[in-house]
């Protein structure tokens, strides 16, 4: 399907002389377009079968503001359409969103079991990680509002709040305890090292990261580097989104990364890079010059599947 989009864009009207444009897919990909290879830890069908077995899920004492039916429906939507994961308008949940998207692609059954256990018991373990969300988180999950479709996604609210509560980086140093509204503040921020640490702890991937929060990666040609790695693994990019999606008319844009995206496809033609990536509940096609690509990227995380016994 993505190749159809690319072919469409190569057909003239949309490519002529344009310096930069983006194409967002606002609706989730149909299920048959999702990657489903033999290397995944579990399959979507296993996760759906697990969710089908849950009958009469009642209210949870641990999460007083989460409605069980909506929670279960939300889990099912995420398992069936991982691309629909939505970190919310104006929040700092984008890093957790990218992580969750990868989680759902690799191990939807693990995701469904972990979130169900968290909902039922208030705590849950996954691998060597034990999630023990704070009382403030439990009270807040299900009440986040004015965040777009995240308003009606209690499972995402619960999960993103748990991740932000559990994993800390230097950006969270001054705001370590959740207060209402902190999902938009430094409490929820994800620096590059923290993002890679979460990937290593939660997902069954080998993770190699190049780049840093304030220094661009020294990897030579960005296109070649990303393209090579996408042939053998999954690539997450840490980018400065403020120069892609302008929000004001200031001339000087601060040079630091703000956003995590999952690269889906990349190609180069006529000195124009076409990058298809996932972020914010949709897929985006972005065409940009190699120089602009170099300017926006601050981190390149390369994930390959763990071999049996690597755990």
């Amino acid at each position, binding site marked *: 399907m993505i190749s159809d989009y690319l072919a469409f864009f190569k057909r003239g009207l949309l490519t002529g002389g344009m310096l930069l444009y983006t194409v967002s897919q606002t*609706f989730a990909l149909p299920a048959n377009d999702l990657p489903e290879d033999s290397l995944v830890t579990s399959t979507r069908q296993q996760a759906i079968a697990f969710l089908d077995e849950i009958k009469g899920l009642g209210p949870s004492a641990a999460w007083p503001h989460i409605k069980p039916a909506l929670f279960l429906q939300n889990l099912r939507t995420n398992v069936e359409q991982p691309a629909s994961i939505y970190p919310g308008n104006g929040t700092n949940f984008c890093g957790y969103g990218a992580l969750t998207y990868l989680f759902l692609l690799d191990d939807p059954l693990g995701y469904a079991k972990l979130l169900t256990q968290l909902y039922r018991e208030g705590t849950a373990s996954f691998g060597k990680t034990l999630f023990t969300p704070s009382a403030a988180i439990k009270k807040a999950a299900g009440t986040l509002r004015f965040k777009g479709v995240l308003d009606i996604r209690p499972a995402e609210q619960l999960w993103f709040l748990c991740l932000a509560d559990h994993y800390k980086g230097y950006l969270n140093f001054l705001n370590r305890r959740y207060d209402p509204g902190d999902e938009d503040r430094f409490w929820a921020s994800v620096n590059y090292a923290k993002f890679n640490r979460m990937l290593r702890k939660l997902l069954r991937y080998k993770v190699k990261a190049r780049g840093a929060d304030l220094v661009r990666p020294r990897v030579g040609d960005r296109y070649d580097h990303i393209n090579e790695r996408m042939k053998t693994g999954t690539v997450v990019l840490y980018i400065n989104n403020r120069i892609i999606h302008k929000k004001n008319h200031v001339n000087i844009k601060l040079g630091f990364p703000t956003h995590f995206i999952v690269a889906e496809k990349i190609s180069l033609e006529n000195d124009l890079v076409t990058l298809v990536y996932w972020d914010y509940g949709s897929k985006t096609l972005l065409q940009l010059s190699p120089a602009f690509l170099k300017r926006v990227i601050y981190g390149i995380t390369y994930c390959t599947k763990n071999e049996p016994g690597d755990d």
Partner: protein
Amino acid sequence: MIKTAISILSSCIILCMLSCSSRNITAKYYYEHEQTLNRIEESYQDLYRQQPFTVAFTAKDFKTISLEIITDTLSYIYEFPLHESRLTDTLVKYGLPAPGVIELIRQMQSIRCTWTNMLTYYVDEKKNSMVFMSVKSVKRVLPLSYKKYYVLAYFSQPQSFDGSGKLLDKKTTRRLRKINGQTFNRINDKVCYTISGHFR
């Protein structure tokens, strides 16, 4: 001498901060440009019903637009100079009435309206939509001033407000509704405004 310099510097900083006050732009702006603003909102609603899209002026000179056309499966976002024929070609290709959209863009340009969009929000798990418009301040603002955009929210239903005119989440709660992280003030039952450093 050093103390005097520090005092002068402090005063300058305070003056710069005061210049950020929302008093620079108030609801008066709406009444001064009510007809044009309402015309933009109405024509945007009409055109949006035919084919969902959004428009933003991305450059300071108001000569470059970002046009997003939303189809069932994809949203196409273009950025190109206003004078180029590709604008009309693109509108025609996606079945938008080109003269109507171009007239809308001209109206937006005339009052420095930077962004028009349809936003969704939820009340009691029910989806609602509103028209969101940002206008770049026509008043002179100092270089360090933050509040540069006058943002209007057009609702389709009358809204609830607290005693000081702040937009509430719903009738039965005192919780303030935030849109893109901003609280909004009443202009009339269906239109609210805020001042922001961002146009979206």
